[in-house]
């Protein structure tokens, strides 16, 4: 096993959860260390998105444990988890259609009560996404899919999270926007925020990842560095299409 970052930020141990009586995850263990982009890949129905929802407190965990910065956060309410510095960007159109850019960022900063810190966060985000500054008053529904995805990234970064969870950031985007989004994610990682990314485009996300997990039917199947998974013949054959 390859050497990983020095500090564990997020870990799950034997995570079991599901919807109602249907169990989706049968015991998932993974970890994200400081300074890493970690990919979570696998076929449809493997439970990738379910892992993120369980970690973010949106889905009740039946057994197992989620630890964040060394503290147990299993089944904490979602807003408490956000307050601790975990930001989650769910799948799909992660926007408020009738709200403008400025309002999105305000909502992203909901858990920051200090006015001065809010101002600082805004300034930091407008530095990271300069083009958003000019579109402050633009409503989200008037933006392109790529712009919306970037806006939701910006929104998720307002709290200066200790980790960022992304569910299919490339969904529905043109190849050009996919690249822009992933380059931004690398920039985010380099600014010191590790990311856990669920992606359908497995080969793409592994290119950018330091580490990866392959799930199958709610179980861990493979894990390793991004490069080692890309070259692993089993992973290639089963999930990367040859």
């Amino acid at each position, binding site marked *: 096993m390859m050497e990983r970052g020095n500090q564990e930020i997020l870990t799950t141990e034997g995570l079991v959860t599901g919807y109602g009586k249907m169990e989706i995850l049968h015991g998932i263990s993974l970890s994200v260390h400081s300074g890493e982009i970690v990919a979570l890949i696998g076929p449809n129905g493997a439970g990738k998105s379910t892992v993120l929802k369980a970690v973010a407190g949106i889905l009740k965990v039946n057994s197992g444990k989620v630890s964040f910065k060394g503290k147990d956060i299993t089944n904490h309410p979602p807003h408490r988890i956000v307050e601790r510095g975990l930001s989650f*960007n769910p799948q799909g*159109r992660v926007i408020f259609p009738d709200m403008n850019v400025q309002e999105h960022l305000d*909502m992203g900063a909901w858990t920051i009560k200090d006015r001065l810190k809010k101002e600082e966060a805004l300034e930091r985000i407008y530095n990271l996404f300069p083009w958003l500054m000019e579109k402050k008053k633009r409503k989200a529904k008037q933006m392109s899919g790529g712009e919306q995805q970037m806006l939701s990234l910006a929104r998720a970064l307002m709290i200066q999270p200790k980790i960022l969870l992304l569910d299919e950031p490339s969904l529905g985007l043109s190849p050009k926007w996919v690249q822009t989004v992933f380059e931004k994610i690398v920039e985010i990682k380099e600014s010191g925020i590790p990311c856990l990314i669920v992606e359908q485009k497995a080969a793409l996300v592994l290119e950018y990842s330091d580490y990866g997990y392959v799930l199958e039917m709610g179980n861990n199947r493979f894990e390793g560095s991004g490069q080692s998974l890309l070259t692993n013949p089993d992973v290639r054959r089963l999930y990367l299409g040859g």
Partner: protein
Amino acid sequence: MLGSVYALVGMGLTLVWGVVGIVNIAHGEFVMLGAYFAFWAFSLIHLNPLFSVLLSIPVFFFVGVLIHRQITERLVKQHELSALILTFGMSILIWNLAQFFWTNTYRSVSFLSGSFPLLGLVFSQSKTVSFGLAVLISAALLLFLKYSSWGKAIRATSQNPDVALVCGINTRKMRMITFGMGIGLAGTAGTIISLQWVIFPQMGATYIAKAFAIVVLGGLGNIHGALVGGLIIGVLEGVVTQYVSAKMAQIIPSATILLILLLRPTGLFKK
């Protein structure tokens, strides 16, 4: 001018519908309770009805919060029919209780019954005061939703609850507050209505019908639409009462719903 009060009722209904996802059939009953609130406060302790209006805002807000916590919260994200059936039952229960305790006697609050001339027209004092109050409350509501951080969080919860949740917004709490605001608007509208109209246990039915017409007219969940919709219904009623008959004016809500659903199901204003 009664349209501005209808708008209050309609805005409450549409707000709860849009944010909490519950169609509150019992909404009109809280208008009735608001009217009785002003009546009893006036006849028992001689409370100035204008003060009742002010007082009814926190009182009914609190009632709404309580009802949501105890009863309607379990309807969130359930089938729409459950909410319809439960609130329908609640409606029947409330007006029957009102009938039982307060009898079917028509009541009214005799206050500000005079009138005053302005620019060659004669204005009724109570109607003018009602209009002023309703406009004031509507404006306060719109400003709250547009500019305050709680207002923004309520809009966020309405537009995309999943994303609001991951922003760290306690969406359960937002729904509770919104339900409180909806009932608060209904109750307050009731106290304002008591200034000029008769009060009786079944009066809620009239107002829920108008409120539905307003919501359909303005577009579901659209607060601005409800405001304009309320004014339109009010003006239509006034015109028809004046030039046709008061009886004909009563078909306006149902006729509006029918026409809008046939011609423009999304409401007059695109959201």
